[in-house]
């Protein structure tokens, strides 16, 4: 709205131009004139097309009959009382015609409800004296130049804009509107009207001054961004910006402590500081040196600001921050504040997607297929009925399910007549999807450790008409003992839920380092159990899909890598999902197996679905590998014994190198960063 108001403020300029005062952008004025003169509705409609909040429009429409008429009167008064610049002539004509074409005029009024606010201000200015011509030009210039910055700057998503506006646009806009309304109410009496106008003028002048400062600062920031500026200029601008003094100097550690003690900084300060840090960090090579501070200081500041701005605990904020580049991290945090679209999955056991869509549309649900990657998903835009209680839902024709939950089942791609295990299945979205893909053949074992959640699982299984499901409630880690020999196993592991923060914001504060280590431990146990439950001799299957709704590396790639190390008979295969980012093969000094890149990551800010991770293993026959291992082991043993008999004494000096090498290999195998070799170390440390 702020930006729109800005645009609207631009409107009156042409009027001024027609006076020959400020020449710029004559288009819109022409339209307006045509509107009032010719009384054609079309221009008004075009204005409607310009993005405008519906509610605003409605607001504008409600008082049409009374207030708008008054409004028109006021306008007369304003014009009569004012110095009567020539630009008003056209509208005065309109006012003469007003009696005849009241409705039309009203129409245009209501469409331009916002425009008028701005218009009024500008007109007032013109009327009194044109003392702000220069400032107006300044207004328009930087405003327009602002636009690209707004678009390119990744920081500015909805929320930040809202938070940022109050500094500039909304106060002026709302002030102006109240003022204009005042003057409307006072309409009939000229003297009061004059008073109100003069008050408005004063306020306007003050605002203008504020705006000027703001613009200057903005221009300065822009200059910062603009790489074509020469150094000196840049410096100057920087100084201007810093002189403006709104959080552009990175606070020192002591200052931060003080700030914390004082109960934390204000939101808009934090936000500006975040923007600043992101900008500096984005071009660290170019600007980092000038700041005279360490990069780590900036990062610390940014992470703690993110934590306070979005309400994370510091540990989690840092953990998530490390996953992305700096601007992308901000995008990620922003995306976590916005809910994901509601999606449903058609139950192909009961109906077809087209029939279901038709039935729901008849109930007043607005929906559309999710995308080409699934032929059962529908995205719900808005619904006049509760989407979780329609007769179609109760009859089991669809399941409310996040789009990301389709992915592991698509990756698993169960074939009819297979035996499938879903190790952590409640509330049954994925289980019933599997059963649907099996077309009620074979058998699905749906397991969940939580007895209370098992109830909703059973209810969903029955509601969706899955007749081949056996529901049981074991701890997943007991599994190969209960039953093995599955063709496919889906492990949607219990996780920290860092991918679904938009759904469950409690994750932001209630996850600590200990939770993560406990969870990844559990996940490692579960994934081994899942692999052991698979029948490697299966003709059609032999696959394990491991997925989490978390984005952290130690719950995903680290677990996958662990499984690859612990079970030599499994290998990663392509998930069959055509989108998603590749998994990390190295992360913060840890190296993962090469094939870990076959796993897929999904992010809320990229794919507009919950943060998710999917990996698919193929389990091969174990016997061969074991034999090989044993043979190798025996060979080694033989060699060792042979060596023992030949030479009884160890030469420590000569062995040291090999021992070192062996240690390095072990560390490497465990995924640690290996220190540089001994003989290189002194050379590295000396300079």
């Amino acid at each position, binding site marked *: 709205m702020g930006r729109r108001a800005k645009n609207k403020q631009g409107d009156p300029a042409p009027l001024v131009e027609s006076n020959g005062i400020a020449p710029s952008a004559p288009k819109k004025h022409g339209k307006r004139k045509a509107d009032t003169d010719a009384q054609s509705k079309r221009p008004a409609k075009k204005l409607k097309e310009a993005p405008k909040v519906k509610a605003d429009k409605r607001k504008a429409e409600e008082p049409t009959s009374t207030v708008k008429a008054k409004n028109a009167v006021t306008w007369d008064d304003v014009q009569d009382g004012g110095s009567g610049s020539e630009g008003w002539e056209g509208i005065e004509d309109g006012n003469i015609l007003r009696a005849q074409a009241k409705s039309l005029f009203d129409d245009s009024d209501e469409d331009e409800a916002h425009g008028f606010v701005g218009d009024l201000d500008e007109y007032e200015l013109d009327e009194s004296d044109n003392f702000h011509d220069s400032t107006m030009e300044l207004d328009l210039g930087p405003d327009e130049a602002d636009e690209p910055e707004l678009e390119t700057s990744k920081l500015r998503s909805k929320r930040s804009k809202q938070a940022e506006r109050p500094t500039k646009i909304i106060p002026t806009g709302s002030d102006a509107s109240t003022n204009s309304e005042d003057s409307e109410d006072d309409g009939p009496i000229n003297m009061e009207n004059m008073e109100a106008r003069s008050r408005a003028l004063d306020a306007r002048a003050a605002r203008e001054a504020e705006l000027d400062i703001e613009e200057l600062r903005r221009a300065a920031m822009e200059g910062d961004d603009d790489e074509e500026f020469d150094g000196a200029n840049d410096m100057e601008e920087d100084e201007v910006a810093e002189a403006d003094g709104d959080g552009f100097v990175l606070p020192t550690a002591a200052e931060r402590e003080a700030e914390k003690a004082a109960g934390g900084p204000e939101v808009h300060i934090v936000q500006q500081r975040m923007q600043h840090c992101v900008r500096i960090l984005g071009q660290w090579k170019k600007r980092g040196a000038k700041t005279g501070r360490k990069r780590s200081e900036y990062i610390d500041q940014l992470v703690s600001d993110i934590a306070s701005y979005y309400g994370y605990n510091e540990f989690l904020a840092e953990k998530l921050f490390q996953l992305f580049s700096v601007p992308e991290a901000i995008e990620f945090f922003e995306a976590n504040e916005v809910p994901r679209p509601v999606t449903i999955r058609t139950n192909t056991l009961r109906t077809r997607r087209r029939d279901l869509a038709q039935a729901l549309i008849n109930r007043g649900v607005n929906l559309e297929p999710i995308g080409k990657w699934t032929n059962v998903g529908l995205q719900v835009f808005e619904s006049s009925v509760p989407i979780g*209680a329609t007769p179609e839902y109760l009859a089991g024709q669809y399941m409310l399910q996040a789009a990301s939950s389709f992915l592991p089942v698509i990756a698993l791609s169960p074939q009819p007549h297979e035996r499938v295990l879903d190790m952590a299945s409640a509330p049954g979205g994925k289980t019933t999807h599997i059963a649907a893909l099996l077309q009620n053949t074979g058998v699905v074992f749906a397991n969940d450790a939580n007895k209370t959640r098992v109830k909703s699982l*059973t209810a969903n299984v029955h509601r969706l008409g899955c*007749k081949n*499901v*056996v529901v049981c409630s074991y701890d997943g880690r007991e599994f190969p003992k*209960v039953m093995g020999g599955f063709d496919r196993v889906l492990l949607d592991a219990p996780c920290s839920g860092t991918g679904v923060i938009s759904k469950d914001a409690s994750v932001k504060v209630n996850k600590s380092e200990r939770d993560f280590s406990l969870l990844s431990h559990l996940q490692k146990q579960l994934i081994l159990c899942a692999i052991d439950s698979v029948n490697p001799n299966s003709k059609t299957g032999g696959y394990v899909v491991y997925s989490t709704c978390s984005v952290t590396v130690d719950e995903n790639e680290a677990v996958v890598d662990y499984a690859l190390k612990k079970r030599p008979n499994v290998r990663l295969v392509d998930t069959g999902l055509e989108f998603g980012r590749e998994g990390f093969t190295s992360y913060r000094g840890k190296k993962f197996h090469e094939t870990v890149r076959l796993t897929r990551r999904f992010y809320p800010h990229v794919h507009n679905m919950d943060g998710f991770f999917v990996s698919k293993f193929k389990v091969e026959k174990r016997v061969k590998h074991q034999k090989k291992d044993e043979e190798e082991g025996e060979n080694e043993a033989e060699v060792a014994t042979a060596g023992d008999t030949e030479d009884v004494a160890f030469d420590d000096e000569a062995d040291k190198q090999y021992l070192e090498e062996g240690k390095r290999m072990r560390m490497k195998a465990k995924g640690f960063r290996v220190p540089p070799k001994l003989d290189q170390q002194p050379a590295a440390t000396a300079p």
Partner: protein
Amino acid sequence: MRPLTEEESKAVFEKLANYIGKNLVHLIDRPDEPYCFRLHKDRVYYVSESSMRLGVSVARPSLISLGTCFGKFSKSGKFKLHVTSLDYLAQYAKYKVWIKPNGEMSFLYGNHVLKNHLGRITEDTPEHQGVVVYSMNDVPLGFGVTSRSTVDTRKLDPTAIIVFHQADVGEYLRDEDTLF
């Protein structure tokens, strides 16, 4: 998990026969795969033999459900059909009732079917006959027992009850805790 005793089977089949009549045979002699009835924790499950064989290896306390639950035995030994059996009842039902869209939600909240909600009804439905209730676009919504024969319904006033409610799919939401 165990097979039903003779008494139990009799109780179950009597109930089922009230809705599907002679079609009961189709439940037992299936062309695709042998199916069987099993009792587990007072509940009767209708399950394919292959699933049942695999389900046997799940310990009793951990087994929650298998196949399709048909209903449960009360402590006094009576058998009550659950809405989960609707799939099979709808498939083999002999007598059907269709209700108009304005009566759908009322029925799904557990109310009886009134005459002015009645869209269609199988001809020659006798009195006190188990019927399956469908919406006008043939989605099964539940089942109940007729209060009058088709012929007698004509004389009734619009607010009179035609079908006594026994189970409806709304129970999946309302009674999720007690149903399973």
